[in-house]
């Protein structure tokens, strides 16, 4: 177990390092030169350019620059946003809550609904439910999330006027306490449905496939031949084996969801990191973009390691590898 743990943590550190390198490379390769920006347009003298280059350490060899970049990051300094000149870390920290609320709730819903329906469909293979769910899973897999969101707005907000079109709280009403929570939930519904619907096929298919796979294993046939009750076989042997791949997928999906939620946030004007990212793109606020990317990569790496550890605890085959 200790060996396995060490290996996973090493991979995690590697991921963070690679993200850092990519981030650093992007900053350096990006068009535009910070010195010419700082020096201004009015005929900057060569001495001034040299002095500025020296001051910001741009003359140093690339690996020294990289090390000093990492050192700054370790102090929690992600640089300053170009548009608001506030620290990037502060801007991101303010927006992380709504994003996590949307992403984590939707993942939980999708895992439960997707896995349950997948298992059910596999047990009733070929039934109307199975066929319909299969068809639906293809369609939702092919649907761009932002378009699904727009269509939900069109139907439920514009035409039926059941849910609000955008935002996280009703700005005209100053709700407090429970009323505020209800208000947020009200605004959360449509974006939540969108993200959940997009993810369900994923879990549905994994659960269905792994149940079918397990059901065709020899040991199950043996149990059946020995006359064990179908329900008992399922509860004791199939369910446990079939649920395992879901956990792996969960970890991989996490990365996808957190960045996928961003685009949904823009559709619904949900005040999370996606909105922040969008403004960062349109204003070409590179430090902010890099900061968001870095935070995302690091949190995903941490989540993945946690998921892997849970997996190792549940499935002994992994840890004795």
């Amino acid at each position: 177990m200790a060996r396995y743990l060490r290996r996973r943590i090493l991979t995690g550190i590697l991921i963070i390092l690679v993200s850092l390198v990519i981030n650093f490379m992007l900053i350096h390769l990006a068009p535009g030169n910070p010195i010419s920006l700082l020096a201004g347009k009015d005929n900057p003298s060569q001495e001034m350019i040299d002095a500025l280059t020296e001051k910001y350490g741009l003359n140093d060899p690339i690996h020294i620059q990289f090390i000093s970049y990492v050192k700054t990051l370790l102090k929690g300094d992600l640089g300053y946003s170009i548009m608001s000149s506030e620290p990037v870390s502060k801007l991101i920290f303010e927006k992380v809550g709504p994003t996590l609320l949307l992403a984590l709730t939707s993942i939980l819903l999708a895992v439960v609904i997707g896995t349950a329906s997948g298992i059910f469909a596999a047990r009733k293979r070929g039934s109307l439910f199975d066929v319909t769910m299969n068809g639906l899973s293809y369609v939702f897999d092919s649907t761009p999330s932002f378009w699904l969101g727009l269509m939900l707005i069109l139907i439920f907000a514009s035409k039926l006027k059941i849910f609000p079109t955008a935002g996280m709280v009703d700005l005209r009403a100053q709700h407090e306490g429970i009323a505020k929570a209800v208000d947020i939930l009200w605004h959360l519904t449509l974006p939540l449905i969108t993200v959940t619907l997009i993810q369900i096929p994923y879990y549905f298919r994994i659960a269905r496939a792994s149940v079918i796979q397990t059901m065709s294993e020899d040991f199950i046939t043996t149990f059946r031949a020995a006359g064990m009750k179908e329900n008992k076989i399922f509860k004791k042997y199939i369910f446990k084996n079939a649920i395992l791949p879901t956990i792996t997928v969960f970890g991989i999906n996490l990365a996808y969801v957190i960045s996928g939620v961003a685009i949904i946030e823009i559709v619904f004007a949900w005040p999370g990191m996606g909105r922040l990212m969008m403004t960062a793109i349109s204003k070409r606020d590179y430090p902010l973009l890099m900061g968001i990317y870095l935070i995302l990569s690091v949190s995903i790496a941490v989540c993945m390691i946690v998921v892997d550890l849970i997996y190792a605890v549940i499935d002994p085959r992994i840890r004795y590898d």
Partner: protein
Amino acid sequence: MNKSGDFFTKMKRMLSMINQVRQLKIGIILLTIIILLALFAPLIATHDPFSLNDDMVNPPSKNYLLGTDGLGRDIFSGILYGARTSIVIGVVAASISGIVGTLIGGISGFYGGKIDSVVSEIINVFLMMPTFFLILIIVALFGSSMFNVMVVIGITTWTGNARLMRAQALSLKQRTFVKSLENIGESKIKTLIKHIIPNGIFPIIANTTMNISEAILTESGLSFLGLGDPNVMSWGQMVYNGKSYLTNGWWISTFSGAAIVLTVLAFYLIGDGMNNILSPKLNDNK
């Protein structure tokens, strides 16, 4: 004579296989229609998709089959031309990812040793990265020409293919015909290119078809965020433009988005159908 007969039996076998797998059949029919529409877009289109006119935000009618957008451009014609963009981006990006993945995965699995452990670790790292976000940043930094979008999608998504090819190479390596090639002194690189890759390519082709779907979705997502190539007609951009007219011009976003769904679905079904042929255990039609 014999050869053409052979060809016909082969075609017949392929057709019956396609007929047996429902997804494949529906996907191929759908894709054929879409490709034909894209090919003959100039003949079918009722208007020039780029030309502006005064009939702004017109609902679907006889003149404008699917309505017009906020600048008076015909949606139907726009969708036809947009099909070209989506298919080209999808196919090129997925092919880049397929080629890179096959080569790296093949080398890693076939040569083994240190190369293999390094490549496996790289694949692990890539799997855990927020790829869409990376693509987004690169496109935002370096410009959103169609070429950039295709290359960036291609080089950030090769890991899935590499994993598949690596597994194929690992298993093919143990087969007798590869071992005998080694014994008669065939060079390693030749064995890899002439025997390992052709024999193990089928899962990668299936996966690449799925990747076309992913690439089309990614491109439409980028376009929806305003990071599409402004010089071409793209479905994602049409959805994006329609967003501001959602209440008084629902047709703009609705139809262009539906076009994305259908095209992605077609590639998806084909890819999944191929996978079903590969692993018949999960095939529902038998």
